[in-house]
């Protein structure tokens, strides 16, 4: 009987201590202030593509065509039944992606050597800059300067390298 009374007293004491500690918890909360930061981090890369544009003439008995090569820096250009006095044009596009760097054209060439045939690249030159989300359009111009290659099928490879 006496033990039970003692336990009651201990219980009350424990409860009082708990309440006191709770009150102290509030009193001991240190002063703090906070700054919050939110953000995003994204990286980039050089992301350009070289694609064929419109060709002219693109049909009939004599025409020019463009095909994309396995190498992404090259295009295959072909003239069927080349004729003297005819101008053959093929446009090509260098597209720079939105999240890419600005790029500079560092190498531009068209291979294929035929007697009496000229192949020029127009509207795009080495050192030209293409900014992100922009497309630069160049043009290949092929024509016969003599009739040495008249009636032949001609193939060329256009190479465009950007840095």
């Amino acid at each position, binding site marked *: 009987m006496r033990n039970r009374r003692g336990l009651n007293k201990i219980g009350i004491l424990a409860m009082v201590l708990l309440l006191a500690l709770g009150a102290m918890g509030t009193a001991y909360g240190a002063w703090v202030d906070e*700054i*919050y930061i*939110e*953000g995003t981090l994204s990286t980039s890369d050089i992301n350009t593509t070289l694609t064929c544009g419109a060709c002219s003439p693109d049909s009939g008995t004599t025409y020019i065509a463009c095909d994309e090569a396995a190498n992404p820096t090259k295009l295959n250009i072909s003239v069927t039944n080349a004729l003297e006095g005819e101008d053959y044009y093929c446009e090509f596009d260098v597209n720079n992606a939105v999240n890419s760097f*600005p790029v500079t054209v560092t190498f531009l060439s068209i291979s294929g050597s035929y007697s009496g045939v000229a192949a020029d690249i127009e509207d795009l030159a080495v050192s030209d800059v293409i900014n992100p989300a922009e497309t630069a359009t160049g043009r290949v111009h092929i024509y016969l300067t003599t009739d040495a290659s008249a009636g032949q099928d001609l193939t060329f490879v256009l190479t465009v390298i950007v840095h």
Partner: protein
Amino acid sequence: MRRNRAGLKRIGVLALALIIALGALGTAYAAWTDSVYIEGTVNTGTLDIDVAGVSSTFVYKVPGNPPEPPSNLPEIVVHYVFGQTDPEPPAGGALIARAVTVPDTSTDSDLAYMTLAGLFPGVDFWADVELEYLGSIPATISMAEIHAIDDPGNKLDSLWTLGRDTKDPLVYPVRYGAWIDGEIKPDGSSTWAYVDDPLGLELQQFDMVHIALHVRLPEGPEYENLSLEFAGTITVIQYNEYAP
């Protein structure tokens, strides 16, 4: 019987006389006193830190530009500036990457947004918040953390670990990854002093401190064209409660 009554009468007269005498004494015995009254107020100190400004990094590609510090990459020009805009971008340059902080002015100067975009290897990107300590009691920076929001599959998530692992200059001549560092300018000083780790930095009223997120990407195609969200908290606590 008659004698008793006369005795009582005398006692009554004596009591009355004593009462009158005591009444007179009461006035005569009131001590001389004077008082001073005090009024006042109790003001407690304050602890308050706010975003006062930002610093940013702008990276340009300038065609034909020779390599120049701090990047030494051809055609790359890096501007570290106070503020969220570049007052003097290079002529003919195209902005290709940036690390910019924008404070949120709608939240009592306690929130800022950082955007680090177009990052690539070879350039140190630095974005920071400039904090001013306005509290009246000394305070200590008890937390300065900026970390990726949980995205374990993202390669950029590893930048914080990389930044910690390559910290020792005796072991790693170049530190890569993402980490926190900063600068402090005590009240009255005109120069900023570099702080390797802001944790534990004690601040007095009107001290200024930069808490910066520093990112240096390692070489490697696995870091290309990725995006990651991050968050951070900078906490100051009353200096006597700081436990390192």
